[in-house]
């Protein structure tokens, strides 16, 4: 019962955070709406019994990406009234509604093979075993590390003052 209430509250918070991002005109309020959206998605991960991913979501998205976006807003100095829609607003709204309709229609009409097994909590040890022990995902983890390194070097060399 508690998890149902948590789901509804977190879902409404996530959607309202996303709506703040696309509707506010002050860029800082937009960034705060983004943080609200990220935090409630972390809560939704925890209601899905993905505790490790919920914490990673808070650390990476709220702790790193949101701070990076706020610093970029400060550096570009266009805080007030710069979140204006372009002239394709109506077309964009139409494509968003079209995507939503198609996605919900597909989701409601597919017979998902839902399993009734109870999920294993906590997930951290299982995820560690999956990533580093069996099934050959170690190579993917190393490639992800190389990707992060390349992104760091690329970001520094692109944003550096000449």
């Amino acid at each position, binding site marked *: 019962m508690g998890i149902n209430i948590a789901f509804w509250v977190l879902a409404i918070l996530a959607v309202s955070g996303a709506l703040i991002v696309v509707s506010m005109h002050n860029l800082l309020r937009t960034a705060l709406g983004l943080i609200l959206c*990220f935090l409630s998605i972390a809560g939704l991960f925890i209601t899905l019994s993905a505790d490790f*991913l919920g914490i990673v979501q808070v650390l990476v998205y709220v702790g790193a990406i949101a701070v990076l976006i706020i610093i970029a807003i400060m550096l570009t100095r266009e805080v007030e009234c710069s979140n204006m829609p372009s002239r394709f607003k109506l077309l964009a709204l139409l494509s968003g509604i079209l995507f939503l309709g198609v996605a919900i229609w597909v989701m409601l009409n597919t017979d998902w093979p839902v399993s009734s097994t109870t999920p294993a909590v906590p997930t951290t040890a299982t995820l560690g075993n999956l990533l580093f022990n069996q099934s050959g995902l170690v190579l993917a983890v190393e490639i992800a590390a190389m990707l992060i390194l390349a992104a760091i070097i690329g970001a520094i060399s692109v944003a550096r003052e000449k």
Partner: protein
Amino acid sequence: MSIGLTHYLIVSAVLFSIGLYGALSRKNAIVILMCVEIMLNAANLSLVAFSRFITPDQLSGQTLAIFSIVVAAAEVSVGLAIIIALYRQRKNIDVSNINLLKW
């Protein structure tokens, strides 16, 4: 009525369409990047929901979500670096003015 897979998928679809609308309709490059992040988060949410309800004992969706978070972090750092470099060059991050490569 208990919360099932479809509820999470519909929340994810709503978030994705809000992000799609924002990414297509805004002019500020930082807001477009934020909307792309919302879309990535919606995809992660549906991955974790599939992992919870369809294969609860394998956690394969959660590993995929971890890699998707890594790629999103790399994408946002490089994207913001490009936006800051653009602002230095042009004093402006309005994407309707940045059309040098437009055909």
